[in-house]
């Protein structure tokens, strides 16, 4: 088993899926010759040819809208949105089309489409590129939302997403693309959608995290441990449908919870997590569920980014607060 980065794991998954199923194809801006601006699709054009690895015109609504048609026509498109912040352009094709075709047609049609997009901060991009917009998509019935935090999960979740009969938004934390390597089986394996993962078990407080914030949560847990606080880190992996059971089980054990995400605070998916916890684990809670998040401002310019983003320090503060509550 080789140690690979997350971007390599994603690349492997795409290659395997295309090998196994001739209906799988990738399309998007710069995914062909250039292999994607992050190299997620590197080498695929050479291996699978122009018909299945398609550099599209610069038009996100066309990418997703035509992919909806491709999917209904029998293909299994994997569409790339170059950066998550540009997904606004195709909100309609996701929110009223991809996610509702099964419902509209009462099951005659379905849309086995994966939309991949890199997201999150920490890499000093220009405006819009770093936005964390997952909350929008968790509020769209018919769509699944998945985000990995490790190379292993990235590959296994992506293979599950491509197999899924329904549309899946698969968002990839840019800052973790090359952050570390991990042993990943070269062959096919799947990590099932819908299941959270206990990234670190602990007893005193549950930190609910996903994607780019999982390593931050682990770092905070490490520091908390040094202060004698035992933190359980839950990596949601699938945001929609959410694994309520795993969250509640953990909070019932620890009695305390903190949610962390990069997205702006108000209306972020952390609100849903907090709402669920207090609803289902009310009597177990020793303290309010706190949220450590981006602020209610647009994602800032690079020079301010580090201060704006949640980090282990801010998370630790919240952990300490709920423990001392």
């Amino acid at each position: 088993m080789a140690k690979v980065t997350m971007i390599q794991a994603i690349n492997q998954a795409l290659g395997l899926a295309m090998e196994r199923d001739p209906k799988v194809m990738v399309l998007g801006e710069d995914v062909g010759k250039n292999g994607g601006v992050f190299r997620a699709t590197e080498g695929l054009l050479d291996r699978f040819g122009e018909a299945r690895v398609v550099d599209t015109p610069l038009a996100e609504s066309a990418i997703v809208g035509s992919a909806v048609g491709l999917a209904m026509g029998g293909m299994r498109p994997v569409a790339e949105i170059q950066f998550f912040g540009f997904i606004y352009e195709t909100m309609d094709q996701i929110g009223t089309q991809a996610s509702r075709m099964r419902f509209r047609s009462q099951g005659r049609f379905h849309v086995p489409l994966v939309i991949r997009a890199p997201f999150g901060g920490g890499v000093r991009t220009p405006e819009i590129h770093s936005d964390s917009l997952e909350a929008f998509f968790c509020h769209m019935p018919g769509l699944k939302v998945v985000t990995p935090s490790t190379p292993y999960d990235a590959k296994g979740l992506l293979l599950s997403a491509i197999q899924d009969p329904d549309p899946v938004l698969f968002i990839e934390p840019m800052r973790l693309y090359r952050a570390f390597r991990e042993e990943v089986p070269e062959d096919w394996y799947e990590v099932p959608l819908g299941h959270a993962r206990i990234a670190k078990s602990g007893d005193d407080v549950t930190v609910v995290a996903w994607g780019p914030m999982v390593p931050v949560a682990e770092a905070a847990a490490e520091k908390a441990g040094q202060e004698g606080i035992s933190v359980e880190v839950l990596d949601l992996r699938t945001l929609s449908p959410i694994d309520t059971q795993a969250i509640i089980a953990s909070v019932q054990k620890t009695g305390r919870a903190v949610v962390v995400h990069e997205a702006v605070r108000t209306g972020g998916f952390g609100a849903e997590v907090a709402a669920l916890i207090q609803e289902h684990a009310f009597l177990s809670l020793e303290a309010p569920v706190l949220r450590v998040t981006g602020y209610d401002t647009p994602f800032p310019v690079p020079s301010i980014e580090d201060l704006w983003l949640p980090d282990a320090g801010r998370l630790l503060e919240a952990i300490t607060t709920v423990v001392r509550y």
Partner: protein
Amino acid sequence: MKPDKEFPIRRVIDEDGQLVGDRSGVTDDELKEFYRWLVTLRTLDQRAWNLQRQGRIGTYPPFSGQEATQVGVVAALDRMDWICGSYRDWAALAYAGVPLYYPLLNSMGHPVSGNIPDSVQALPVQVVIAAQILHAVGLAWSAKLQGQDRVAVTFFGDGATSQGDFHEALNLASVMKAPVIFVAQNNQWAISVPISRQMNSQTIAQRSLAYNIEGVRVDGNDIIAVFQTLKEVAARVRAGKGPALVEAVTYRLGAHTTADDPTRYRPSDEEARLSHGEPVARLKRYLLGAGILGEEDFQRIDDEAKATVDEAVKTAESYPKSASETVFDHVYQDLTEPLKQQRAAFRQRVAEGGGQRG
């Protein structure tokens, strides 16, 4: 550029039903069949209007005036070709094989109307203006990738041409050489907005120039011209020559929907002038003039149409209600955990007789 020169309106029979072009390729029998369909559809459409007025169905978007385009286009297709239309394209779907009670069920808010029978290669009707145009591109593209001998046809209105999705679709289709036929039904109005405010161009067809694809203009009230045009265009598209844009010039005979009042914005003299050439009366005049059908035929066809529509109304009104909990069935292939719980709560609530307003 002179759009009227470069994109002349193709026409075979004029408003008065006079032959002014070449009818070749369309037999008398085909014409009789077309006429039967047009009358049936018109009858259905008018009945639906009345049913709405009687409160028996909900909001309904009439297609009166556009029957020739919708039927003429579909008649030129193969059975496996894809059809992607909007809320106003039930005439196309019906001719393609969707039962006549479907549009009624749709306006009654019955979910089954989205489930187009498997025998018909068509998407459910689209409410979001222009969204289906991109689906047609994808479907055509998928056919090409899978070596299927299929084209995709998409219907949309003059208003839809202003949407970004229209542009993105035509550009992508042109680049991918996807076998799509884009049928713009230029019925002159987008609710209250006339085409002259929708665009500052004389034709929709000229938009084809931007994408380097074929563009043609046809009299959408002349079913012969529509049928011939589509036959030719479809042959070229099927042969891999790339997509084509067809502008069918027609007229929305009545209101936008049963909720609309066109007297607020539409001059009655325009209505009178442009209604004269409407497709059903036009074909009737031609058939009569050419001696293909006579008065007693027309009476019989009208009677049959009425009977057919009566039947459709009966079917619609006696159609089994779908259990309301089916609302949970087709969100995903498998019920998710949250939905399982929600369905259970919903079931209980329904069992307890909840959900009446207030």
